Protein backbone atom coordinates (compact mmCIF):
# COMPACT_ATOMS: atom_id res chain seq x y z
CA UNK A 1 0.00 0.00 0.00
CA UNK A 2 1.26 3.49 -0.76
CA UNK A 3 1.96 5.31 2.46
CA UNK A 4 3.33 8.52 1.08
CA UNK A 5 2.90 9.99 -2.34
CA UNK A 6 4.41 13.14 -3.80
CA UNK A 7 3.03 14.43 -7.04
CA UNK A 8 4.76 17.01 -9.24
CA UNK A 9 6.14 19.02 -6.34
CA UNK A 10 7.81 22.37 -7.02
CA UNK A 11 9.52 24.08 -4.12
CA UNK A 12 11.36 27.35 -3.93
CA UNK A 13 13.67 29.29 -1.63
CA UNK A 14 12.80 32.83 -2.45
CA UNK A 15 13.37 32.98 -6.17
CA UNK A 16 15.50 29.84 -6.37
CA UNK A 17 13.76 26.67 -7.43
CA UNK A 18 15.03 23.78 -5.34
CA UNK A 19 12.61 21.06 -6.47
CA UNK A 20 11.30 20.61 -9.99
CA UNK A 21 8.32 18.35 -10.51
CA UNK A 22 9.33 15.83 -7.93
CA UNK A 23 7.10 12.76 -7.80
CA UNK A 24 7.82 9.87 -5.53
CA UNK A 25 6.14 7.14 -3.60
CA UNK A 26 6.91 5.31 -0.42
CA UNK A 27 5.06 2.09 0.25
CA UNK A 28 4.26 0.82 3.67
CA UNK A 29 7.06 -1.25 5.11
CA UNK A 30 9.67 -0.07 2.65
CA UNK A 31 13.05 1.50 3.05
CA UNK A 32 13.32 4.09 0.32
CA UNK A 33 16.49 6.07 -0.16
CA UNK A 34 17.13 9.37 -1.87
CA UNK A 35 20.62 9.90 -3.15
CA UNK A 36 22.22 12.76 -4.97
CA UNK A 37 25.08 15.16 -4.70
CA UNK A 38 25.34 18.32 -2.62
CA UNK A 39 22.57 20.76 -3.22
CA UNK A 40 20.53 18.30 -5.26
CA UNK A 41 17.42 18.93 -3.20
CA UNK A 42 17.29 15.88 -0.97
CA UNK A 43 16.88 17.79 2.25
CA UNK A 44 14.40 20.08 0.61
CA UNK A 45 12.30 17.09 -0.35
CA UNK A 46 12.14 15.96 3.24
CA UNK A 47 11.40 19.47 4.44
CA UNK A 48 8.60 19.74 1.95
CA UNK A 49 7.07 16.55 3.25
CA UNK A 50 7.26 17.61 6.85
CA UNK A 51 5.84 21.01 6.02
CA UNK A 52 8.88 23.14 6.76
CA UNK A 53 8.96 24.20 3.16
CA UNK A 54 5.63 24.82 1.48
CA UNK A 55 5.68 23.90 -2.22
CA UNK A 56 4.40 26.29 -4.85
CA UNK A 57 2.55 23.52 -6.61
CA UNK A 58 2.01 19.78 -6.44
CA UNK A 59 0.34 17.31 -4.13
CA UNK A 60 1.41 15.31 -1.11
CA UNK A 61 -0.67 12.47 0.27
CA UNK A 62 0.02 10.49 3.38
CA UNK A 63 -2.30 7.58 4.09
CA UNK A 64 -4.49 9.23 1.44
CA UNK A 65 -4.71 12.41 3.48
CA UNK A 66 -3.67 15.66 1.94
CA UNK A 67 -0.68 17.09 3.81
CA UNK A 68 -0.29 20.31 1.90
CA UNK A 69 -2.52 22.46 4.03
CA UNK A 70 -1.30 21.15 7.34
CA UNK A 71 1.21 23.01 9.48
CA UNK A 72 4.38 21.19 10.45
CA UNK A 73 3.27 20.17 13.89
CA UNK A 74 0.10 18.57 12.58
CA UNK A 75 2.05 16.63 10.00
CA UNK A 76 4.20 15.32 12.81
CA UNK A 77 1.05 14.31 14.64
CA UNK A 78 0.09 12.14 11.68
CA UNK A 79 3.08 9.96 12.46
CA UNK A 80 5.83 11.35 10.29
CA UNK A 81 9.09 11.82 12.13
CA UNK A 82 11.82 13.88 10.51
CA UNK A 83 15.38 13.69 11.75
CA UNK A 84 16.74 16.91 10.31
CA UNK A 85 20.06 17.47 8.68
CA UNK A 86 22.62 18.65 11.19
CA UNK A 87 20.85 17.00 14.12
CA UNK A 88 19.16 20.09 15.50
CA UNK A 89 19.41 19.02 19.09
CA UNK A 90 17.84 21.31 21.70
CA UNK A 91 21.18 22.30 23.06
CA UNK A 92 20.08 23.69 26.41
CA UNK A 93 17.78 20.80 27.19
CA UNK A 94 19.21 17.69 28.75
CA UNK A 95 19.39 14.41 26.91
CA UNK A 96 16.36 13.19 28.77
CA UNK A 97 14.39 16.33 28.03
CA UNK A 98 15.33 16.13 24.37
CA UNK A 99 13.94 12.64 24.25
CA UNK A 100 10.81 13.67 26.10
CA UNK A 101 10.29 16.43 23.57
CA UNK A 102 10.15 13.71 20.95
CA UNK A 103 7.20 12.23 22.77
CA UNK A 104 5.51 15.58 23.14
CA UNK A 105 2.22 14.42 21.68
CA UNK A 106 2.13 11.20 23.70
CA UNK A 107 -0.12 11.48 26.69
CA UNK A 108 0.49 8.09 28.26
CA UNK A 109 3.39 8.16 30.70
CA UNK A 110 3.84 4.43 30.45
CA UNK A 111 4.35 4.46 26.73
CA UNK A 112 6.90 7.24 27.12
CA UNK A 113 8.79 5.15 29.60
CA UNK A 114 8.77 2.11 27.37
CA UNK A 115 10.01 4.05 24.41
CA UNK A 116 12.71 5.68 26.49
CA UNK A 117 13.89 2.25 27.51
CA UNK A 118 13.99 1.16 23.91
CA UNK A 119 15.98 4.15 22.78
CA UNK A 120 18.45 3.54 25.58
CA UNK A 121 18.85 0.02 24.40
CA UNK A 122 19.66 1.17 20.91
CA UNK A 123 22.04 3.85 22.17
CA UNK A 124 23.50 3.03 25.58
CA UNK A 125 25.66 6.16 25.40
CA UNK A 126 22.51 8.23 25.82
CA UNK A 127 21.68 6.50 29.05
CA UNK A 128 25.14 7.32 30.38
CA UNK A 129 24.68 10.97 29.52
CA UNK A 130 21.06 11.30 30.51
CA UNK A 131 21.49 14.61 32.32
CA UNK A 132 24.09 16.21 30.06
CA UNK A 133 22.97 19.23 28.09
CA UNK A 134 22.39 18.28 24.47
CA UNK A 135 24.61 21.04 23.16
CA UNK A 136 27.78 19.75 24.76
CA UNK A 137 27.53 16.25 23.32
CA UNK A 138 29.91 15.29 20.58
CA UNK A 139 28.72 15.21 17.01
CA UNK A 140 28.07 11.52 16.98
CA UNK A 141 26.34 11.53 20.31
CA UNK A 142 24.07 14.23 19.05
CA UNK A 143 23.17 12.20 16.00
CA UNK A 144 22.16 9.30 18.21
CA UNK A 145 20.11 11.65 20.29
CA UNK A 146 18.37 13.04 17.23
CA UNK A 147 17.40 9.59 16.02
CA UNK A 148 16.36 8.57 19.50
CA UNK A 149 14.23 11.65 19.80
CA UNK A 150 12.45 10.84 16.56
CA UNK A 151 11.82 7.29 17.70
CA UNK A 152 10.15 8.65 20.81
CA UNK A 153 7.36 9.87 18.58
CA UNK A 154 6.57 6.30 17.65
CA UNK A 155 6.29 7.26 14.00
CA UNK A 156 4.94 5.18 11.18
CA UNK A 157 7.19 6.96 8.71
CA UNK A 158 10.71 7.83 9.75
CA UNK A 159 12.58 10.28 7.55
CA UNK A 160 16.30 10.47 8.15
CA UNK A 161 18.44 13.19 6.64
CA UNK A 162 22.01 11.96 6.37
CA UNK A 163 22.08 10.06 9.63
CA UNK A 164 25.58 8.77 9.06
CA UNK A 165 27.13 12.20 8.70
CA UNK A 166 30.01 12.64 11.08
CA UNK A 167 29.66 9.25 12.70
CA UNK A 168 32.30 6.72 13.43
CA UNK A 169 32.20 3.74 11.10
CA UNK A 170 31.18 1.46 13.90
CA UNK A 171 28.24 3.71 14.74
CA UNK A 172 27.30 4.07 11.11
CA UNK A 173 27.22 0.36 10.93
CA UNK A 174 25.03 0.28 13.99
CA UNK A 175 22.73 2.93 12.67
CA UNK A 176 22.17 1.08 9.46
CA UNK A 177 21.50 -2.01 11.48
CA UNK A 178 19.00 -0.14 13.58
CA UNK A 179 17.34 1.20 10.48
CA UNK A 180 16.98 -2.29 9.12
CA UNK A 181 15.76 -3.53 12.45
CA UNK A 182 13.18 -0.76 12.75
CA UNK A 183 12.08 -1.56 9.26
CA UNK A 184 11.76 -5.22 10.01
CA UNK A 185 9.59 -4.27 12.97
CA UNK A 186 7.28 -2.61 10.47
CA UNK A 187 8.45 0.98 10.32
CA UNK A 188 8.56 2.64 6.94
CA UNK A 189 11.72 4.58 6.28
CA UNK A 190 12.68 7.35 3.93
CA UNK A 191 16.43 7.74 4.02
CA UNK A 192 18.54 10.53 2.56
CA UNK A 193 22.18 9.58 2.35
CA UNK A 194 25.48 10.63 0.91
CA UNK A 195 26.77 7.25 1.84
CA UNK A 196 25.08 5.89 -1.26
CA UNK A 197 26.72 2.53 -1.11
CA UNK A 198 25.39 1.56 2.25
CA UNK A 199 22.07 3.22 1.70
CA UNK A 200 21.39 1.37 -1.49
CA UNK A 201 22.41 -1.85 0.15
CA UNK A 202 19.66 -1.74 2.69
CA UNK A 203 17.06 0.08 0.61
CA UNK A 204 14.24 -1.64 -1.17
CA UNK A 205 14.04 1.13 -3.64
CA UNK A 206 15.98 4.28 -4.39
CA UNK A 207 15.56 7.59 -6.16
CA UNK A 208 18.43 9.48 -7.65
CA UNK A 209 17.93 13.20 -7.48
CA UNK A 210 19.94 15.77 -9.37
CA UNK A 211 19.57 19.55 -9.34
CA UNK A 212 16.04 19.29 -8.02
CA UNK A 213 14.84 16.64 -10.44
CA UNK A 214 14.37 12.90 -10.15
CA UNK A 215 16.86 11.28 -12.49
CA UNK A 216 16.28 7.62 -11.84
CA UNK A 217 14.14 5.27 -9.85
CA UNK A 218 14.77 1.64 -9.20
CA UNK A 219 15.34 -1.15 -6.78
CA UNK A 220 18.29 -0.66 -4.47
CA UNK A 221 20.37 -3.41 -5.96
CA UNK A 222 19.60 -2.35 -9.50
CA UNK A 223 20.68 1.19 -8.90
CA UNK A 224 23.82 0.02 -7.23
CA UNK A 225 24.82 -1.78 -10.36
CA UNK A 226 23.85 1.01 -12.67
CA UNK A 227 26.93 2.40 -14.40
CA UNK A 228 25.91 6.03 -14.16
CA UNK A 229 25.12 5.79 -10.49
CA UNK A 230 28.39 4.03 -9.89
CA UNK A 231 30.31 6.71 -11.66
CA UNK A 232 28.60 9.63 -10.02
CA UNK A 233 27.96 8.47 -6.48
CA UNK A 234 29.84 5.36 -5.69
CA UNK A 235 33.16 6.26 -7.21
Amino acid at each position, binding site marked *: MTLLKLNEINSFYGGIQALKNISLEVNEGEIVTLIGSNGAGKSTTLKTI*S*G*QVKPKSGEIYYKNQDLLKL*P*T*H*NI*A*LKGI*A*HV*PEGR*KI*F*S*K*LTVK*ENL*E*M*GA*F*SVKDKKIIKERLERVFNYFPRLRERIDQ*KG*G*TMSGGEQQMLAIG*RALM*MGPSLLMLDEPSMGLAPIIVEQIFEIIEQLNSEGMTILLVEQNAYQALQIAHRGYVIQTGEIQMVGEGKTLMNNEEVKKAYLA
Partner: protein
Amino acid sequence: MKEDILVNDVIQSLPQVLVDGFILGAVYAIVALGYTMVYGILELINFAHGEIFMSGAFIGTAFLFVFSGLGLFHSLPALLILIIVLVLTSVLTGFVGMGIERVAYRPLRKAPKLITLITAIGISFLLQDFVRFITELKRGNYILTGPSLFNTQHSIKTHSILSVFGNAQIKSASIIILVVAVIMMITLDFFINKTKWGMAMRAVAQDRETASLMSVNVNKVISLTFFLGSALGGATGVLFAVQYNTIDPYIGFILGLKAFTAAVLGGIGNIRGAMVGGFVIGILEMFASANLSTLTSGVLGSEYKDVFAFAILIIVLIFKPEGLFGKSVAEKV
Protein backbone atom coordinates in the same frame (compact mmCIF):
# COMPACT_ATOMS: atom_id res chain seq x y z
CA MET B 1 30.25 62.01 63.38
CA LYS B 2 32.32 59.16 64.58
CA GLU B 3 32.70 55.96 62.60
CA ASP B 4 30.78 53.70 64.95
CA ILE B 5 27.87 56.10 65.22
CA LEU B 6 27.63 56.00 61.46
CA VAL B 7 27.66 52.26 61.45
CA ASN B 8 25.12 52.21 64.23
CA ASP B 9 22.74 54.28 62.18
CA VAL B 10 23.12 51.94 59.26
CA ILE B 11 22.60 48.83 61.33
CA GLN B 12 19.72 50.22 63.24
CA SER B 13 17.73 50.93 60.11
CA LEU B 14 18.81 47.71 58.46
CA PRO B 15 15.68 45.65 59.24
CA GLN B 16 13.47 48.37 57.83
CA VAL B 17 15.68 48.79 54.79
CA LEU B 18 15.59 45.07 54.15
CA VAL B 19 11.82 44.92 54.49
CA ASP B 20 11.35 47.81 52.10
CA GLY B 21 13.97 46.41 49.76
CA PHE B 22 12.26 43.08 49.67
CA ILE B 23 8.95 44.62 48.73
CA LEU B 24 10.41 46.74 45.97
CA GLY B 25 12.51 43.76 44.93
CA ALA B 26 9.45 41.53 44.72
CA VAL B 27 7.92 43.92 42.23
CA TYR B 28 11.11 44.03 40.21
CA ALA B 29 11.37 40.28 40.39
CA ILE B 30 7.97 39.50 38.92
CA VAL B 31 8.29 42.08 36.21
CA ALA B 32 11.73 40.67 35.50
CA LEU B 33 10.15 37.25 35.10
CA GLY B 34 8.04 38.57 32.27
CA TYR B 35 11.11 39.92 30.51
CA THR B 36 12.98 36.74 31.04
CA MET B 37 10.21 34.53 29.72
CA VAL B 38 9.78 36.45 26.51
CA TYR B 39 13.50 36.82 26.13
CA GLY B 40 13.97 33.16 26.73
CA ILE B 41 11.65 32.24 23.93
CA LEU B 42 12.11 34.92 21.31
CA GLU B 43 15.48 36.37 22.29
CA LEU B 44 13.65 39.65 22.24
CA ILE B 45 13.98 42.38 24.83
CA ASN B 46 10.28 43.00 25.05
CA PHE B 47 10.41 46.67 25.86
CA ALA B 48 6.63 46.71 25.90
CA HIS B 49 6.54 44.53 28.97
CA GLY B 50 6.95 47.50 31.27
CA GLU B 51 3.89 48.99 29.62
CA ILE B 52 1.93 45.79 30.13
CA PHE B 53 2.76 46.10 33.77
CA MET B 54 1.60 49.70 33.68
CA SER B 55 -1.63 48.75 31.91
CA GLY B 56 -2.20 46.14 34.59
CA ALA B 57 -1.87 48.78 37.24
CA PHE B 58 -4.44 50.95 35.51
CA ILE B 59 -6.86 48.16 34.73
CA GLY B 60 -6.60 46.95 38.31
CA THR B 61 -7.20 50.41 39.68
CA ALA B 62 -10.16 50.79 37.37
CA PHE B 63 -11.63 47.58 38.74
CA LEU B 64 -11.04 48.80 42.26
CA PHE B 65 -12.92 51.99 41.46
CA VAL B 66 -15.78 50.03 39.97
CA PHE B 67 -15.94 47.73 42.97
CA SER B 68 -15.86 50.59 45.42
CA GLY B 69 -18.50 52.29 43.31
CA LEU B 70 -20.67 49.19 43.67
CA GLY B 71 -20.12 49.32 47.39
CA LEU B 72 -18.42 45.94 47.41
CA PHE B 73 -15.73 47.23 49.70
CA HIS B 74 -18.07 47.00 52.60
CA SER B 75 -19.61 43.68 51.77
CA LEU B 76 -16.54 41.67 50.76
CA PRO B 77 -13.27 41.06 52.55
CA ALA B 78 -10.42 43.05 51.06
CA LEU B 79 -8.37 39.97 50.32
CA LEU B 80 -11.14 38.50 48.24
CA ILE B 81 -11.48 41.73 46.30
CA LEU B 82 -7.78 41.71 45.66
CA ILE B 83 -7.85 38.16 44.38
CA ILE B 84 -10.77 38.86 42.08
CA VAL B 85 -9.08 41.96 40.72
CA LEU B 86 -5.81 40.10 40.28
CA VAL B 87 -7.44 37.35 38.29
CA LEU B 88 -9.53 39.64 36.12
CA THR B 89 -6.62 41.95 35.41
CA SER B 90 -4.12 39.27 34.65
CA VAL B 91 -6.47 37.59 32.22
CA LEU B 92 -7.02 40.90 30.49
CA THR B 93 -3.37 41.87 30.29
CA GLY B 94 -2.57 38.32 29.29
CA PHE B 95 -4.77 38.78 26.26
CA VAL B 96 -3.28 42.19 25.58
CA GLY B 97 0.16 40.59 25.54
CA MET B 98 -1.01 37.83 23.27
CA GLY B 99 -2.56 40.39 20.97
CA ILE B 100 0.63 42.39 20.82
CA GLU B 101 2.58 39.31 19.91
CA ARG B 102 0.08 38.40 17.24
CA VAL B 103 -0.01 41.83 15.63
CA ALA B 104 3.43 43.24 16.12
CA TYR B 105 5.90 40.44 16.70
CA ARG B 106 4.65 37.45 14.77
CA PRO B 107 4.93 39.08 11.35
CA LEU B 108 8.56 39.73 12.19
CA ARG B 109 9.62 36.28 13.31
CA LYS B 110 11.92 35.81 10.38
CA ALA B 111 13.16 39.38 10.33
CA PRO B 112 16.48 40.37 11.90
CA LYS B 113 16.34 40.16 15.64
CA LEU B 114 16.77 43.83 16.33
CA ILE B 115 13.95 45.04 14.14
CA THR B 116 11.52 43.48 16.58
CA LEU B 117 13.06 45.73 19.18
CA ILE B 118 11.76 48.65 17.15
CA THR B 119 8.20 47.38 17.20
CA ALA B 120 8.56 46.72 20.90
CA ILE B 121 9.58 50.33 21.45
CA GLY B 122 6.74 51.42 19.20
CA ILE B 123 4.24 49.41 21.22
CA SER B 124 5.58 50.96 24.41
CA PHE B 125 4.97 54.47 23.18
CA LEU B 126 1.59 53.51 21.86
CA LEU B 127 0.45 51.96 25.10
CA GLN B 128 1.72 54.85 27.18
CA ASP B 129 -0.24 57.33 25.19
CA PHE B 130 -3.27 55.14 24.92
CA VAL B 131 -3.55 54.61 28.65
CA ARG B 132 -2.86 58.25 29.28
CA PHE B 133 -5.59 59.20 26.87
CA ILE B 134 -8.21 56.92 28.40
CA THR B 135 -7.40 57.96 31.94
CA GLU B 136 -7.34 61.60 31.13
CA LEU B 137 -10.58 61.34 29.27
CA LYS B 138 -12.23 59.62 32.19
CA ARG B 139 -10.69 61.48 35.08
CA GLY B 140 -9.15 64.63 33.68
CA ASN B 141 -5.75 63.75 35.08
CA TYR B 142 -3.56 60.85 34.22
CA ILE B 143 -1.90 60.57 37.59
CA LEU B 144 -4.29 58.18 39.19
CA THR B 145 -4.63 57.53 42.87
CA GLY B 146 -6.73 54.49 43.58
CA PRO B 147 -8.69 53.44 46.61
CA SER B 148 -6.54 51.82 49.22
CA LEU B 149 -7.21 48.29 50.32
CA PHE B 150 -4.96 47.31 53.16
CA ASN B 151 -3.57 49.98 55.37
CA THR B 152 -2.92 48.41 58.71
CA GLN B 153 0.65 48.78 59.87
CA HIS B 154 2.46 45.96 61.55
CA SER B 155 5.59 46.27 63.52
CA ILE B 156 8.25 43.60 63.26
CA LYS B 157 10.06 43.38 66.54
CA THR B 158 13.56 43.05 65.18
CA HIS B 159 14.75 45.10 68.11
CA SER B 160 14.03 42.24 70.47
CA ILE B 161 16.03 39.85 68.31
CA LEU B 162 19.16 41.91 68.28
CA SER B 163 19.34 45.08 70.26
CA VAL B 164 21.37 46.97 67.67
CA PHE B 165 18.42 46.74 65.29
CA GLY B 166 15.54 49.11 65.27
CA ASN B 167 12.06 47.80 64.71
CA ALA B 168 10.68 47.58 61.22
CA GLN B 169 7.27 48.62 59.98
CA ILE B 170 5.34 46.83 57.33
CA LYS B 171 1.96 47.53 55.78
CA SER B 172 -0.42 44.64 55.37
CA ALA B 173 -0.55 45.47 51.68
CA SER B 174 3.17 44.80 51.56
CA ILE B 175 2.85 41.46 53.28
CA ILE B 176 0.23 40.42 50.80
CA ILE B 177 2.41 41.55 47.93
CA LEU B 178 5.31 39.53 49.17
CA VAL B 179 3.19 36.45 49.63
CA VAL B 180 1.44 36.72 46.28
CA ALA B 181 4.71 37.45 44.53
CA VAL B 182 6.41 34.45 46.01
CA ILE B 183 3.47 32.20 45.15
CA MET B 184 3.50 33.44 41.58
CA MET B 185 7.20 32.86 41.26
CA ILE B 186 7.14 29.36 42.64
CA THR B 187 4.23 28.41 40.44
CA LEU B 188 5.93 29.76 37.40
CA ASP B 189 9.21 28.10 38.18
CA PHE B 190 7.41 24.82 38.56
CA PHE B 191 5.51 25.33 35.36
CA ILE B 192 8.57 26.11 33.28
CA ASN B 193 10.89 23.51 34.66
CA LYS B 194 8.64 20.64 35.54
CA THR B 195 5.74 20.53 33.12
CA LYS B 196 5.48 19.43 29.56
CA TRP B 197 4.36 22.81 28.31
CA GLY B 198 7.19 24.44 30.16
CA MET B 199 9.60 22.11 28.45
CA ALA B 200 7.97 22.88 25.13
CA MET B 201 8.54 26.56 25.81
CA ARG B 202 12.19 25.96 26.41
CA ALA B 203 12.46 23.85 23.29
CA VAL B 204 10.71 26.45 21.16
CA ALA B 205 13.05 29.01 22.62
CA GLN B 206 15.99 27.21 21.14
CA ASP B 207 14.79 25.96 17.82
CA ARG B 208 11.31 26.61 16.58
CA GLU B 209 11.59 24.60 13.40
CA THR B 210 12.74 21.50 15.13
CA ALA B 211 10.22 21.91 17.90
CA SER B 212 7.48 21.89 15.32
CA LEU B 213 8.92 18.64 13.96
CA MET B 214 8.19 17.25 17.42
CA SER B 215 4.51 18.12 16.87
CA VAL B 216 4.74 21.23 19.01
CA ASN B 217 2.45 23.99 17.85
CA VAL B 218 4.97 26.78 17.96
CA ASN B 219 2.51 29.64 17.64
CA LYS B 220 0.50 28.26 20.48
CA VAL B 221 3.53 27.97 22.70
CA ILE B 222 4.64 31.49 21.93
CA SER B 223 1.15 32.82 22.53
CA LEU B 224 1.09 30.94 25.81
CA THR B 225 4.40 32.46 26.80
CA PHE B 226 3.17 35.93 26.08
CA PHE B 227 -0.06 35.25 27.87
CA LEU B 228 1.71 34.04 30.97
CA GLY B 229 4.35 36.74 30.94
CA SER B 230 1.82 39.48 30.41
CA ALA B 231 -0.64 38.08 32.92
CA LEU B 232 2.15 38.06 35.43
CA GLY B 233 3.12 41.59 34.48
CA GLY B 234 -0.47 42.76 34.76
CA ALA B 235 -0.90 41.10 38.13
CA THR B 236 2.25 42.79 39.33
CA GLY B 237 0.79 46.06 38.14
CA VAL B 238 -2.20 45.47 40.40
CA LEU B 239 0.04 44.67 43.33
CA PHE B 240 2.04 47.79 42.61
CA ALA B 241 -1.10 49.90 42.51
CA VAL B 242 -2.26 48.43 45.79
CA GLN B 243 1.09 49.05 47.40
CA TYR B 244 1.78 52.58 46.19
CA ASN B 245 -1.76 53.67 45.29
CA THR B 246 -0.52 56.29 42.88
CA ILE B 247 0.25 55.36 39.30
CA ASP B 248 0.85 57.14 36.03
CA PRO B 249 1.30 55.94 32.45
CA TYR B 250 5.05 56.32 32.66
CA ILE B 251 5.73 53.96 35.54
CA GLY B 252 6.33 51.12 33.16
CA PHE B 253 9.37 52.65 31.59
CA ILE B 254 11.45 53.22 34.70
CA LEU B 255 10.33 50.10 36.43
CA GLY B 256 10.72 48.06 33.30
CA LEU B 257 14.27 49.28 32.99
CA LYS B 258 15.08 48.22 36.54
CA ALA B 259 13.34 44.92 36.14
CA PHE B 260 15.18 44.21 32.96
CA THR B 261 18.41 45.03 34.70
CA ALA B 262 17.40 42.58 37.38
CA ALA B 263 16.69 39.91 34.79
CA VAL B 264 20.12 40.42 33.30
CA LEU B 265 21.81 40.43 36.68
CA GLY B 266 20.27 37.07 37.42
CA GLY B 267 21.10 35.68 34.02
CA ILE B 268 18.53 36.47 31.38
CA GLY B 269 16.32 33.64 30.31
CA ASN B 270 16.73 32.07 33.71
CA ILE B 271 13.59 32.11 35.83
CA ARG B 272 15.25 31.81 39.20
CA GLY B 273 17.89 34.27 38.16
CA ALA B 274 15.24 36.86 37.42
CA MET B 275 13.75 36.42 40.87
CA VAL B 276 17.03 36.68 42.68
CA GLY B 277 18.11 39.55 40.46
CA GLY B 278 14.92 41.42 41.30
CA PHE B 279 15.41 41.06 45.02
CA VAL B 280 19.07 41.96 44.81
CA ILE B 281 18.42 45.13 42.84
CA GLY B 282 15.53 46.12 45.10
CA ILE B 283 17.55 45.68 48.26
CA LEU B 284 20.67 47.32 46.85
CA GLU B 285 18.67 50.30 45.78
CA MET B 286 16.94 50.65 49.07
CA PHE B 287 20.17 50.25 50.95
CA ALA B 288 21.97 52.78 48.79
CA SER B 289 19.31 55.43 49.03
CA ALA B 290 19.04 55.03 52.77
CA ASN B 291 22.72 54.86 53.59
CA LEU B 292 24.93 56.22 50.84
CA SER B 293 25.18 59.67 52.31
CA THR B 294 25.79 58.35 55.80
CA LEU B 295 28.50 56.04 54.57
CA THR B 296 30.26 58.62 52.44
CA SER B 297 29.67 61.45 54.91
CA GLY B 298 27.55 63.31 52.43
CA VAL B 299 29.81 63.17 49.40
CA LEU B 300 27.47 60.82 47.60
CA GLY B 301 23.78 60.88 48.36
CA SER B 302 20.75 58.78 47.62
CA GLU B 303 20.65 60.33 44.17
CA TYR B 304 23.50 57.96 43.37
CA LYS B 305 21.47 54.87 44.17
CA ASP B 306 21.03 53.93 40.53
CA VAL B 307 24.69 54.47 39.88
CA PHE B 308 25.34 52.13 42.74
CA ALA B 309 22.93 49.50 41.39
CA PHE B 310 24.27 49.74 37.86
CA ALA B 311 27.85 49.69 39.03
CA ILE B 312 27.21 46.50 40.94
CA LEU B 313 25.51 45.02 37.90
CA ILE B 314 28.48 45.89 35.73
CA ILE B 315 30.94 44.48 38.24
CA VAL B 316 28.97 41.26 38.56
CA LEU B 317 28.80 40.89 34.81
CA ILE B 318 32.48 41.52 34.40
CA PHE B 319 33.27 38.61 36.65
CA LYS B 320 30.33 36.49 35.65
CA PRO B 321 29.36 37.57 32.15
CA GLU B 322 26.35 35.30 32.05
CA GLY B 323 24.75 36.75 35.16
CA LEU B 324 24.46 35.35 38.65
CA PHE B 325 22.52 32.26 37.69
CA GLY B 326 23.37 31.92 34.03
CA LYS B 327 25.41 28.80 33.53
CA SER B 328 28.64 29.43 31.79
CA VAL B 329 28.29 26.95 28.99
CA ALA B 330 31.47 27.18 26.99
CA GLU B 331 30.28 27.22 23.44
CA LYS B 332 30.83 23.82 21.84
CA VAL B 333 33.10 24.46 18.92
